[in-house]
């Protein structure tokens, strides 16, 4: 998983079923210094309603599908490779 900051939102109408009732946020990946070192920005499914500027944890791959619907054997066709999995309150 990686940490990042919510920097935007994407609105869609024509979409795959996996997006029904779910939001899409733009998350800038943060490096060790806290800065967006590589400039990598991902589009992440958001079920936790993370606001703009919020520090979040993002999960990729099959873990991301588990954020939407847990159960690896039943969710492999769910179109999602990236999802916000935690709204970060604190880090130390």
């Amino acid at each position, binding site marked *: 998983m990686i940490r990042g900051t919510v920097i935007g939102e994407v609105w869609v109408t*024509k979409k795959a079923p996996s997006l029904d009732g779910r939001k899409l946020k733009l998350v800038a990946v943060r490096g060790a*210094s806290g800065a967006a070192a590589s400039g990598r920005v991902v589009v992440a499914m958001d079920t936790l309603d993370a606001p703009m500027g919020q520090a979040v944890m993002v999960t990729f791959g099959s873990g991301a599908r588990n954020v939407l619907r847990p159960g690896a054997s039943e969710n492999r066709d769910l179109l999602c*490779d*990236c999802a916000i999995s935690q709204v970060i309150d604190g880090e130390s």
Partner: protein
Amino acid sequence: MILGRVVGEVWATRKHPKLVGYKLLVIRPHWWYEPSHHVGHLVAIDAHVDAGVGDDVVICMGEPPRWQSEGPAMPVEAAVMAVVDRCEVDESAFEGPRPLKLWRDGPRGLIVGRIRTEGAEVTSQAEPERSEP
């Protein structure tokens, strides 16, 4: 997932049988996404949204694209997931002591509103005109 623009379509009759019946779209990614091949494009199947050239789209990568049809898996690495209506980006992410830098020129034609997190000012800009073929 990543954001990109549909720049073309590919037609093929000689292909893996699991690709029959699916549109193959050429996508220009908007931002850096750590691709394994630096070729400025990727080809994605469109199983759900019927995207066309000039559309900005959300692309899903990895495992799920392979399971967008009934039966055995498809030999694909990317699938179009949605057509973007609108996108808003926090402008302050691009400023300050450690600003976000985007690969290439960023999605200039895509961002239609910008929001500042400090203060209540919300600014928006009209959608830039797309170049016509």
